[in-house]
């Protein structure tokens, strides 16, 4: 307690300033979890309420993805660009936030087996990187135009 009364005759321990964190990676990730989390509250909840609740999962068709993201080889409008930026920001923040969370959980339960812990994390990060790169490429290039939905778009 900051306001603890000092008893006469007792040794008083001086409060020293908090030392600089030695592990800057952990410090950075700790801060990242807080700030990205606060941003993701708005980003993911707005996305979830838009797509999964208001529009509703049952209403979403392939053509909806195409109209929102734009189709490869066709001109894209401002809406498409804004949607892609929105999803790209969610993707990056959510994946890094999620992977760091998984890392903490994995560390809690497997830290005493370093080989297993490292192996698990390597596998998890590899799968996450593969999926995320795929997602980012889709957001950079847009949906594929094919017989499924291009006709409905025009």
């Amino acid at each position: 307690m900051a306001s603890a009364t000092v008893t006469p005759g007792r040794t008083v321990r001086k409060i020293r300033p908090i030392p600089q964190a030695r592990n800057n990676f952990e410090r950075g990730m700790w801060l990242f979890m807080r700030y990205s989390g606060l941003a993701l509250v708005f980003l993911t909840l707005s996305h979830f309420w838009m797509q999964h609740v208001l529009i509703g999962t049952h209403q979403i068709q392939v053509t909806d993805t195409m109209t929102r993201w734009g189709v490869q080889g066709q001109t894209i409008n401002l809406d498409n660009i804004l949607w892609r930026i929105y999803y790209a920001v969610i993707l990056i923040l959510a994946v890094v936030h999620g992977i760091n969370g998984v890392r903490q959980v994995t560390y809690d339960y497997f830290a005493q087996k370093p080989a297993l812990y490292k192996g698990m994390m390597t596998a998890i990060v590899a799968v996450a990187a593969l999926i995320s790169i795929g997602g980012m490429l889709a957001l950079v290039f847009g949906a594929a135009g094919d017989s499924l939905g291009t006709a409905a778009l025009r």
Partner: protein
Amino acid sequence: MLNPLILSFREGVLYRAKGNILWLLHRVSGLGIVLFLGFHIFGMSMSAFNPPLHEQMLELYKTPLFAIGELALAACLIFHAVNGTRIAILELRPKLWEKQEVATRWSLIIVAILLLPTLAIMAYKSITHFIGG
């Protein structure tokens, strides 16, 4: 003797769960979200690489099993968001630690306020979809 790994897992869950159910729920909901996140990003990215598979994934979300899973996802997402906000604000502003109990109570109230209408709308839409209303 238990395997040390299982022991540490069991003790970790049991110890922390005592008086710290929110910690456990935050962890479990986070793992649930990250599992769906990977699946979801994969499914959406297929719109660029494999449109028929993308369509199959969208259709998969419309099955009864996923409709129920989506309710669980909503619960995980809203709880994790509100509880995470509480954690972030309290840890970034240590002066507020005196109000931890108030913060916990209010975060649970906010979870209920946000979650119940969300679940109701989703369940209504799913039920009318499956019954064909």
